[in-house]
């Protein structure tokens, strides 16, 4: 009954063209041999070569990766704790303030978050550098993690935890052996979300970093403000490529898992008959 009408096909085609054409053009023009980005002068990979020799970019990429790994790991631990408290913690003093502080950063404009953290770091006399970006990124991404994890915690059956406790588990063991494995997919996607948020962040990082630790978005930002540059096109292409590869791999793996699970269910049903 659901039939693809001409209208639907047209709107989907135009819509996805709008979403993807700019990125595809960026990728194509990264192989342009001309320095002028808008004039096609033949295929070349020279910008990739120049990019790989540009130490400033490589250093920035290293800083970005370090910050992202550190902050997303910290954010996952803190965010999972926060989600557990919100869903299972019951009543405690200041609960409203706590849940407010979890949700507020999600809608707070980045300029305000960045500004306020900078004023704090200056106020307590903390030198700005890698540490301060990690602190800043952990703070805003732990909120995203806790939203992702708590949505999973809400839907799972609490009696499983209680059964573990009845069978003699300590609360910590019950969490480690029962709760954590069940919420693991949400914890992992929370980590991935925190990781990409940190990789992507320009505004908060520019407020909270010092001259010694420039992240890749800050580096890209100072380059693109001068106009289009083929090196940035090459860098963007590499980043788009990594993401596309990662997402496609992840979706294939989960599809395979789903098929296997379905096959198991069918086998079990057949055995039961």
């Amino acid at each position: 009954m659901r039939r693809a009408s001409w209208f639907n096909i047209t709107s989907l085609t135009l819509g996805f063209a709008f979403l993807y054409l700019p990125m595809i053009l960026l990728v194509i023009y990264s192989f342009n041999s001309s320095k002028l980005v808008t004039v096609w002068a033949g295929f070349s990979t020279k910008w990739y070569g120049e990019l790989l020799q540009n130490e400033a970019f490589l250093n920035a990429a290293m800083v970005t990766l370090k910050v992202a790994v550190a902050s997303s790991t910290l954010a996952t631990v803190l965010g999972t704790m926060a989600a557990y408290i919100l869903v299972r913690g019951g009543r405690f003093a200041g609960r409203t303030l706590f849940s407010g502080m979890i949700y507020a950063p999600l809608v707070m404009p980045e300029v305000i978050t960045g500004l306020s953290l900078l004023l704090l770091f200056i106020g307590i006399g903390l030198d700005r550098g890698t540490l301060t970006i990690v602190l800043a990124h952990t703070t805003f991404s732990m909120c995203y993690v806790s939203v992702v994890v708590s949505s999973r915690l809400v839907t799972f059956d609490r009696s499983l935890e209680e059964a573990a406790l009845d069978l003699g588990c300590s609360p910590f063991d019950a969490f480690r052996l029962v709760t954590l494995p069940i919420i693991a997919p949400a914890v992992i996607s929370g980590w991935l979300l925190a990781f990409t948020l940190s990789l992507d962040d320009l505004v908060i990082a520019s407020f909270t970093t010092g001259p010694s630790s420039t992240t890749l978005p800050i580096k890209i930002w100072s380059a693109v403000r001068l106009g289009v540059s083929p090196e940035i096109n090459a860098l963007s292409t590499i980043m788009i490529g990594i993401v596309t590869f990662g997402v496609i791999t992840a979706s294939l793996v989960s599809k395979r898992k789903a098929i296997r699970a379905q096959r198991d269910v069918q086998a079990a049903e057949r055995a039961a008959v």
Partner: protein
Amino acid sequence: MRRFFLIAVPYAWLLALFFIPFIIVFKISLSDLALSIPPYSPTAKDGIWAMFAAFDLENFTFLASDDLYWKAYLSSLKIALISTVLAVLVGYPMAYGMARAPEEWRPTLMMLVILPFWTSFLIRVYAWVGILSNEGLLNQFLLWLGIIDTPLTIMNTTTAVYIGIVYTYLPFMILPIYAALDRLDESLIEAAEDLGCSRLKAFWLVTIPLSRNGIIAGCFLVFIPALGEFVIPSLLGGSGTLMIGKVLFEEFFNNRDWPVASAVAVILLLILIVPIVLFQRNQQRQAEVEA
């Protein structure tokens, strides 16, 4: 004891790195320039009290007297509002098409909508620079087609900002509308058609009202971040576009006027509180309807 520890760690973290900084912004917005200008000598010990002593509304009256700020707030509101409407116009047909697509295509279409989220925001905005500039690909294409004789000026205008916002926030609009349309009971549309509605009329009287909550959620998800946007107006809007996020960033880094930057931030938050509260109420009502 263990429970206390579990609560205390994230709580203390958020208090120290979210709540207190926020109070500091509020306080600096009320303090005099001399006290808070770099190198910003007051530290946590003596500075906080010194600032309290100088408590006044000078920065806010300054904001009120300089019409740059009012214009920036108003133009941010206008740009965010128009972009939101444009995003509905582009996003709704896409969400509709997705909800009507054959079952086996839908996960792929979903993934195609989500994929841009995982690519860098900055790069997605930057991709438009090469398209919209005067000698850019769009102008070259239109000149080649013969539609125009002279290149259009799109780059560094508000039009470019609209395009940028709609482009980067479009998935936020599509996903909630798709979720609403996907749940929609199709027999209701059939009933409307059986009762004599034309297809268009059934769409207008049945489909649109039933997807209202998705449209509202999508509008908030685009409007709220668009209001404080900094990257898009700076990169695509040029110096002529006034948006408050950009003004705040420049006030802070170029003029180094921290009290005024803080006052700008406080007012921006006050403006944002209204849509955020409305959004939360809508979410709550939706949750109640579903329960």
